[in-house]
């Protein structure tokens, strides 16, 4: 079968992409080891799940879509309010706490228990975001020595 140019490139990229999946999965593994965190995922800006580490009773597609749709609005709201760049959004419900952070490739979401410590989770989310940005750099071929996220010092401020 003759492949056109983009298809050939895609085929060639497959091993790299699986590495990227491994990097994202490792980032989520560390994040979900944080006390109180019950799950995590990386979603594209369109709301598609890229990497997922959730309990079976969690709706992965629903959570990925939620992270993207809320994340987009938060980004606009924070800019309008003169609060700088979007760093983090936390949604507190009766049963759980959803924490969303922006990534260059979409959004990172942590699902936590309702009474989980936000400061601790934010710090781990910052680390996971760094790792996810390294994975994003692997996809784009960029050499990112410093991640684009501004979450680094966030844990200390919460």
């Amino acid at each position, binding site marked *: 079968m003759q492949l056109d140019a983009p298809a050939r490139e895609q085929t060639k990229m497959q091993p790299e992409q699986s590495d990227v999946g491994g990097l994202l999965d490792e980032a989520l593994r560390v994040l979900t080891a944080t006390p109180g965190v019950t799950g995590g995922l990386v979603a594209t800006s369109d709301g598609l799940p890229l990497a997922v580490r959730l309990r079976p009773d969690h709706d992965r597609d629903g959570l990925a879509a939620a992270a993207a749709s*809320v994340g987009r609005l938060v980004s606009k709201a*924070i800019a*309008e*309010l*003169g*609060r700088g760049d979007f760093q983090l959004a936390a*949604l*507190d*419900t009766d049963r759980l706490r959803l924490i969303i952070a922006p990534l260059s490739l979409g959004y990172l979401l942590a699902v936590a228990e309702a009474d989980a410590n*936000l400061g601790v989770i934010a710090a781990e989310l910052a680390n996971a975001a760094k790792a996810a940005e390294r994975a994003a750099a692997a996809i784009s071929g960029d050499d990112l020595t410093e991640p684009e996220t501004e979450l680094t010092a966030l844990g200390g401020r919460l």
Partner: protein
Amino acid sequence: MTPGESPAVTGRQAFCRLPRWPTREEQLAQVELTGHIEPRIGALRRELRRNPASLCFAELADLVRREGNLVEAAALCARGLLQHPGYATGRVVMGEIFRDQQLESKAEEEWREALRMDPNHPRARLRLGELYLHRGDVPRARAALAAALHVNPGLAEAEDLLATIEHQEAESAPRDQMLRRLTEPSTRTSPPVQKLLAAVGACSSVEGALLVNSDGLPVAGSLTAAANAEAGAAMAAQVVREARRVIAPLGAGRLRMALLRGSEGSVRCLVVEDGTLIVALKRDVPIGAADAELQELLAARRARERADQDAA
């Protein structure tokens, strides 16, 4: 009014004037602008002849509509929908044909049907937004257009219409009224919420607080010195509405509050009975300290309410 000056148009009248349906001349002018569509129509006709079950009927009907041939467009679309009754885009195109034929209620029916099939269809939401605006129902128009933009952030038509709404609103609302709304508790809020607003505003960790009603309109309080603070508060309230919408099917329970953290400060969004309370936190105050202060305030309020109920 001096000669040549337009009569003042305010409120509902102004919105009714915005998105009138295109006239025949405008439709023809659009065809001139899109002169390249003829070859595409030819290609689609050939495709439909080759494969009568093709979904390309919707695009073909749309292009034929744009050329002004509404009867043929309606026939093409109706025939296609007979074979594909669940094709949401086909329904949207059918609605646009009805709209051009000035059959407003039939157009609305089609767009609603399209949304029933595909709740995230941006063009269906856009068309419904236009329709509501045409009828002067600004809150519904705003919601539909915002939803269209939410699904497809690049939808320029929806962006333009929302910008026009905001422009018209700013022009039609007298400035002193707007200032009063920002500095005084509104009579549209219940006394307990007015008290809460004042108490939250007085917290040492709070820069400002503003109540946004269920229509997404700021109604009382003042937030920050940021130029777009009011628009930002409305958008923060939209975050809460969107979060409630997406969280509900996930079985996560009721949304109680949200924190929006930026590189230059944070905003707390609290769900209250009259809408959403947007609280701008002082930049140098840790979130934990601000939260503790707010929680203490809310707990005291709840305790007072319980005591009042018991007394009653």
